[in-house]
């Protein structure tokens, strides 16, 4: 085990090296690009024994990933923003064909207006594709989650692909200390992928992802729902096993100072780190406040959330995405599934810095009773 200072993109590339995928089809896009560069270098240096497939677009990258995964090998790809939008069609195919590979998405805003900076609109726009989505808070979690994602996706009770979502620039281009686990221990935790069900084998030919008439289609889609719900248990068990092996604890969600909290922030990804600072500051002033971090957005862990928010009085959901005319996606899901007094806040779109002032404002508004269900924070006054 070594500890080095690196970006989250490098941490993801290190996790991929340790996971030993056999095929890596990838197309570069800011701010994901350095992931594809590191992996190209690792393959060239024979640190990874994989076929690095150079493609002409993200649509081709994900198509190659589905094809390779359908042939029963471990596959990795990565993208961001417009690249993920171009993958949209095949994201659904990947989930429907039950190809259990891993995609890292460097979260970035969607055009128009053109913007290369961070928010989470790109992956949120794919929340219904049938992929597992885990949002990570720091570089260590990016590495650890990439490893765990393979174990979860490849579980025969799941067989759905995983999207590891890491905030563009805020994580992808920020260096911080990361512990790189030893290969031997990773090999114990994540042995080679051996497909048990449908995969393409010339000795035992079959079709995958083929035509399903009204007699079969609904059952195939329902099976995906069953698998997604199974993932709740499998993710938690995988986290527990990971903690035993590597000493770092993760779960579907994490509560930070929530035990006696009256108001709880809810957020995903790197923003949780800044909220921890504000929670500490508000606690020092006697405010009963906490943070609920959602790691697993898909599957959406209703029971785990309820366990943490059951005694609080108000919830402030902070979204870095926006369904035009509706509010944030996480806010919408919380309103649908959690029976509490919940308010939504939109902030940080297109890389707008989420300052301590913005986070304090969210707390004050929630405490005093918001005028609207959904409030925009950090908008410039005309």
């Amino acid at each position, binding site marked *: 085990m070594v500890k080095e200072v690196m970006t989250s993109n490098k941490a993801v590339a290190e996790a991929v090296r340790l996971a030993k995928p056999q095929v890596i089809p990838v197309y570069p896009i800011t701010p994901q690009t350095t992931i594809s560069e590191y992996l190209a270098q690792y393959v060239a240096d024979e640190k990874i024994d994989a076929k690095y497939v150079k493609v002409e677009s993200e649509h081709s990258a994900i198509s190659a990933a589905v094809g390779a995964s359908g042939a029963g090998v471990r596959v990795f790809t990565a993208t961001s923003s417009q690249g993920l939008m171009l993958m949209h069609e095949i994201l659904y195919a990947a989930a429907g064909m039950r190809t259990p590979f891993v995609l890292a998405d460097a979260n970035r805003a969607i055009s128009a207006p053109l913007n290369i900076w*961070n928010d989470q609109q790109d992956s949120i726009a794919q929340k219904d594709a049938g992929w597992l989505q885990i949002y990570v808070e720091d570089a260590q979690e990016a590495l650890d989650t990439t490893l765990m994602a393979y174990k979860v996706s490849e579980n025969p009770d799941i067989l759905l692909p995983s999207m590891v979502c890491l905030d563009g620039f*805020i994580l992808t281009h*920020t*260096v*911080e200390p990361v512990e790189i686990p030893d290969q031997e221990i990773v090999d114990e935790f994540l042995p080679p992928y051996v497909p048990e069900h449908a995969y393409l084998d010339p000795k035992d030919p079959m079709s995958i992802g083929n035509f399903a008439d009204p007699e079969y289609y609904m059952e195939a889609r329902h099976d995906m729902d069953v698998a997604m719900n199974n993932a709740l248990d499998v993710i938690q068990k995988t986290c527990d096993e990971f903690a035993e092996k590597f000493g770092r604890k993760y779960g579907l969600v994490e509560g930070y100072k929530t035990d006696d909290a009256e108001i709880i922030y809810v957020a995903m990804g790197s*923003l949780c780190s800044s909220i921890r*600072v504000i929670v500490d500051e508000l606690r020092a002033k006697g405010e009963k406040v906490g943070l609920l971090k959602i790691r697993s957005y898909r599957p959406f862990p209703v029971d785990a959330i309820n366990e943490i928010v059951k005694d609080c009085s108000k919830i402030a959901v902070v979204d870095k995405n926006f369904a035009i005319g509706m509010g944030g996606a996480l806010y919408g899901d919380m309103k649908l599934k959690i029976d509490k007094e919940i308010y939504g806040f939109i902030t940080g779109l297109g890389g707008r810095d989420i300052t301590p002032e913005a986070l304090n404002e969210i707390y004050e508004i929630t405490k005093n009773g918001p005028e609207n269900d959904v409030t925009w924070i950090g908008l410039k006054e005309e």
Partner: protein
Amino acid sequence: MIEIRFHGRGGQGSVTAAEILAKAAFKDGKSVQAFPFFGVERRGAPVMAFTRIDDEPIKMRYQVYNPDYVLVLDEGLLNVVDVFSGIKDNTEVIINTKTFEGSGDHEVHKIDATGIALDMLGRNIVNTIILGYFAKKTGVVSIDSLLEVIKETFPGKIGELNAEATKKAYDMG
């Protein structure tokens, strides 16, 4: 928590300097974080980068607004951007300059890093050199760790030369 802001131009290595400082402080046993001001980088355009150093794990992810130290790699920026933006009374400002006479409001440290760079490297690349001066003036990072990281970052002859130039600036601090 110590917060450092770097001002430079695209291509001058401000982001690399912020990362080298973080890696050196990490070698000293500190928690660190370094990141660029997230922009569309072009050669010659003003850029900023930031380093945070602390004894405790660093959580916050917002930008640095009130730095403890400001390092200016290119004095030409003084007419372009407000390098004194958000500084505190005790913020120390280090500028690569031969000619700057001071802003009148805030005392600055001056180092002719360009002179050292042209003399020892044959190129006007000052990002490691100004870190040497910073290390001596502030004690925020040890010179040993700094030189180690510089040699790791730039393997071979370039790293050796950079380390020598950095040490020279350190001795001038």
